[in-house]
């Protein structure tokens, strides 16, 4: 029989084999008895002699089992089931230990899968680590720029490091009202992609197909003549749609492929539906072929392509980066006019993930580790208590010859069972927690945090958590093992037996070990609670601090007029003037305004030198006359914009207070002229308004505002101040826009408070997580204190009985015992407080000073924990003080 089948036989037919062995030994006794009877002994004497000859049946059996194939596995199983039996005998301990550890493992499994989903695998692409994004750089700014088509082609043709490259251009398209379900025009997110795009990412649609090469422009020598790119934004009228587009806008139609969509000016037929996991670039609704005309392809001045490349296997990003930079260098020499000082930069797709998200995840992971430490301390504490209770049992066993290794193995098996069960329970808790966390994320966030939409408990995290649970449980058992088997305990089991039942106060080594654990628990709990408190406080502040305007009862929506239908500034001006007129006449609206952000600029003040490169820029916006009143931004000096600030009148500007503080600290800015870089015109300052504050850092933002009429923008936000809930007016507000232009979609309509909630939802989620951690800490640490002081009181029952009998007052007993637990908790809190201050500093530095070091949080949390510790210590103390001395003296 081959060994494997023997192993299987031994494991599966365990019972039969055991019976067989049993019978074999019995038959041995029978045969020997018969032999002895023949030799002349009585039946009874013969049997006794036979049994003596057989010797230790269990030991023989054990040795036979030991030689069987799979003996080790079987032994493990026996030990584990023994562990289960012991745990079932002591369900209170088992439940508390498993649940404590499961909480610690649960938060860690959530943190692991968050790291996995958001940091390590934010995209579903199989070769994610080999996918790079490529950018152009200029000498002017350190930041990256999109790539021009001609440069992209040169990179693509000359590179040896990349298997393939693809180009993407994001754009918004209006979906014609005739094809939308609402019957209103809708704005959708589109991406024009070169034909190799899907192949590069290794993503294929479950239904339909992606683009053919001749639907893009990637293949060299393809005939592009006779194609008019001006009227056709795609080479062929084909479109691949996203899963969510198919689900919501096409109502999961089974016959979606082959249907037509009217997008912008053209009709497209649907050729494929991508899988749910795929939405790249983030939240893309439809993908169109990127069709470029020959003149587009030779264009080195329009930088509007995002370039992706997949590295050949074995090529490092550094080598590829060097190569692309060398190519860019050659292009500089070849095309000095357009490519002067244009470099190239390579960033891996993974590093493109939001760095702030990574830092939040890091903080949560660290906090989760603290929870696990705390949970582990609690389990270690429990195990020590257990070990003390079982000291006698183990002393007896070792006196009877039970090997130390065997005793240790059984204890380890027991904690391994705790580890396995806690691991499974923890992963389940973690998955549940993660699902809640994910469900709380507003969909608007998906496009900023890749991977969050598909976040789930992945297999690697689950396995890692269970392994961590088992390892953690084993580590937690070390103090107990040390106590049971350490030198003191083992040299003389007789000593232990004699010692057992004697008074062991706080000074004995085993309670010293437990005291240390309890101190550590208090310190960890304080650390976690402070972390949670700071995060919650930060989140509250983010929501409630004065942002420089009033976000309540304010509606915001956006409109982006297409260039094709709004060619002149006059047309844009007229559109917004009519829409604002309609909005302010709504019965429930108090004020309406339009605003559009412009690229930030540096300011040059009349009569002063030009700003140097790198000087701080100001935020620029173009706003309609009612803007400051609608937003409730205070006007500090001068006047508001009025309708008389027209294209023909003097260019004017309103600046915010911090611009004034910087440029005119002593004098009044009114009437002064300023210039913005890249614009020869001079603007007269007519007013000073309050600063808006950055939402995360709460820093005032220097800003300059220009009248909308003097700088009309096609893409603008419409703001509407309402007396009540602004969303009640959503439909009528939208209708105002359609009345002016029925083909014009409105998007991102929401209340300002919701927008703020979305932007701060990451911090909110972190605050929720940390609150959970804090609550766990608040549960575990007092439990540890309670269990230790109960134990100590139980140990001292006899002593306390004597004290009371000798006339000690109940109060003094209470004081004695409270002092004991108070000393431990106090030491823990003191250590914890120091650590918490360091933690707060660290959180603040990692999270860009978002986190405030709020002293009331420190004080409040310390008091809260001290109160819990007091209660946890008081209950056993109170019990001890009520001991009946007669009972106590009889107590062994």
């Amino acid at each position, binding site marked *: 029989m081959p060994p494997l089948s*023997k192993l299987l036989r031994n494991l599966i037919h365990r019972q039969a084999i055991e019976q067989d062995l049993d019978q074999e030994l019995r*038959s*041995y006794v029978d*045969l020997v008895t018969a032999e002895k009877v023949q030799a002349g002994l009585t039946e009874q004497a013969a049997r006794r002699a036979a049994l003596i*000859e057989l010797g230790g049946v269990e030991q*023989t059996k054990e040795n036979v089992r030991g*030689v069987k194939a799979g003996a080790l596995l079987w032994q493990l199983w026996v030990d584990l089931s023994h562990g289960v039996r012991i745990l079932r005998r002591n369900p209170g301990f088992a439940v508390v230990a498993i649940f404590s550890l499961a909480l610690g493992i649960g938060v860690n499994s959530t943190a692991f899968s968050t790291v996995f989903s958001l940091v390590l695998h934010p995209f579903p692409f199989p070769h994610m680590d080999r996918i790079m994004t490529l950018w152009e750089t200029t000498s002017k700014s350190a930041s990256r720029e999109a790539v021009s088509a001609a440069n992209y082609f040169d990179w693509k043709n000359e590179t040896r490091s990349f298997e393939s490259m693809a180009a993407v251009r994001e754009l918004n398209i209006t979906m014609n009202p005739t094809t939308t379900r609402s019957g209103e025009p809708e704005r959708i997110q589109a991406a024009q992609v070169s034909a190799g795009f899907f192949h590069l990412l290794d993503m294929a649609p479950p239904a339909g197909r992606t683009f053919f090469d001749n639907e893009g422009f990637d293949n060299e020598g393809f005939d592009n003549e006779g194609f008019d790119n001006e009227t056709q934004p795609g080479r062929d009228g084909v479109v691949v749609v996203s899963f969510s587009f198919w689900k919501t806008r096409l109502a999961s139609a089974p016959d979606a492929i082959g249907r037509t969509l009217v997008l912008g000016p053209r009709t497209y037929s649907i050729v494929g539906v991508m899988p749910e996991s795929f939405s790249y670039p983030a939240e893309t609704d439809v993908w169109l072929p990127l069709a470029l005309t020959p003149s587009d392809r030779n264009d080195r001045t329009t930088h509007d392509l995002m370039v992706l490349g997949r590295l050949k296997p074995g090529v490092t990003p550094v080598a590829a980066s060097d190569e692309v930079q060398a190519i860019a260098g050659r292009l500089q020499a070849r095309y000095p006019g357009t490519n002067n000082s244009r470099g190239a930069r390579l960033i891996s797709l993974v590093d493109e993930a939001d760095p702030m998200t990574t830092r939040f995840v890091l903080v949560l992971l660290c906090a989760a580790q603290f929870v696990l430490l705390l949970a582990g301390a609690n389990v270690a504490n429990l195990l020590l208590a257990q070990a003390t209770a079982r000291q006698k049992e183990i002393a007896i066993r070792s006196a009877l010859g039970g090997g130390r290794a065997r005793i240790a193995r059984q204890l380890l098996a027991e904690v391994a069972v705790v580890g396995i069960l806690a691991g499974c329970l923890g992963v389940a808790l973690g998955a549940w927690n993660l699902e809640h966390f994910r469900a709380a994320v507003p969909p608007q966030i998906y496009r900023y945090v890749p991977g969050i939409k598909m976040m789930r408990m992945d297999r690697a995290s689950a396995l890692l958590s269970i392994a961590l649970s088992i390892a953690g449980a084993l580590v937690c058992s070390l103090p107990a093992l040390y106590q049971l088997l350490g030198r003191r305990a083992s040299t003389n089991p007789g000593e232990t037996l004699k010692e057992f039942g004697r008074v062991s106060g706080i000074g004995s080594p085993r309670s010293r070990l437990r005291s240390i654990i309890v101190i550590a628990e208090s310190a960890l709990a304080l650390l976690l609670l402070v972390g949670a408190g700071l995060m919650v406080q930060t989140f509250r502040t983010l929501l409630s601090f004065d942002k420089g305007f009033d976000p309540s009862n304010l509606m915001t929506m956006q409109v982006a007029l297409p260039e094709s239908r709004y060619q002149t500034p006059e047309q844009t001006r007229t559109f917004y003037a009519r829409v604002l007129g309609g909005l302010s006449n709504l019965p429930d609206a108090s004020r309406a305004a339009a605003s559009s952000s412009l690229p930030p600029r540096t300011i040059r003040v009349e009569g002063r030198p030009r700003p140097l490169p790198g000087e701080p820029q100001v935020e620029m916006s173009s706003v309609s006359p009612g803007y400051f009143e609608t937003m409730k931004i205070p006007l500090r000096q001068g006047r508001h914009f009025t309708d008389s600030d027209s294209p023909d009148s003097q260019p004017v500007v309103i600046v915010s207070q911090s611009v004034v503080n910087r440029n005119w600290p002593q004098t009044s800015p009114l009437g002064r002229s300023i210039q913005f870089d890249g614009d020869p015109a001079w603007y007269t300052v007519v007013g000073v308004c309050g600063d808006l504050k950055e939402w995360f850092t709460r820093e005032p933002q220097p800003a300059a505002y220009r009248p909308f009429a003097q700088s009309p923008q096609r893409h603008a936000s419409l703001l509407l101040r309402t007396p009540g809930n602004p969303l009640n007016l959503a439909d009528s507000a939208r209708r105002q826009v359609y009345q002016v232009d029925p083909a014009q979609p409105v998007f991102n309509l929401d209340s300002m408070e919701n927008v703020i909630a979305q932007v701060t939802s990451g911090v909110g989620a972190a605050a929720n997580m940390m609150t959970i951690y804090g609550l766990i800490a608040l549960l575990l640490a007092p439990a540890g204190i309670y269990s230790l002081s109960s134990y100590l009181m139980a140990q001292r029952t006899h002593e306390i009985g004597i004290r009371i009998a000798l006339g000690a007052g109940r109060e003094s007993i209470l004081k004695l015992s409270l002092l004991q637990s108070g000393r431990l908790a106090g030491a823990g809190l003191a250590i914890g407080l120091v650590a918490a201050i360091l933690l707060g500093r660290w959180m603040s530095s990692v999270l860009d000073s978002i986190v405030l070091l709020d002293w009331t949080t420190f004080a409040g949390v310390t008091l809260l924990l001290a109160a819990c510790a007091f209660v946890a210590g008081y209950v056993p103390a109170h019990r001890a003080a009520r001991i009946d001395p007669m009972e106590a003296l009889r107590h062994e």
Partner: protein
Amino acid sequence: MPSQKTDLLQGTLDLLILRTLTLQKDHGVGIARRIHQITKGTFEVKPGSLFPALHRLEERGWLDSEWGESENRRRAKFYELTAAGRRQLETEMHNWQRVQSAMAWAIEATS
């Protein structure tokens, strides 16, 4: 060193068991008694080492076992040499002879 000594003894026991079973199949008591007999009372095999050895040999495929009836009509488990067991016996005997002569030389050389 103790561990090697055990190995030697264990190997000896294995060899004795295999040797005992060359003629006919036998049960545990029979094997123990025969070893006692053929070693002229030098080895007395206790069940505590006999059964683990029997099961170990069976596990390696050198022995087969089946339940049968003993000479005095009692149920007993009989062990039998397999073909692999016979080959193993050859090897073991060969090895043993080598060890034996080596030991003999060694002892003569030192004395």
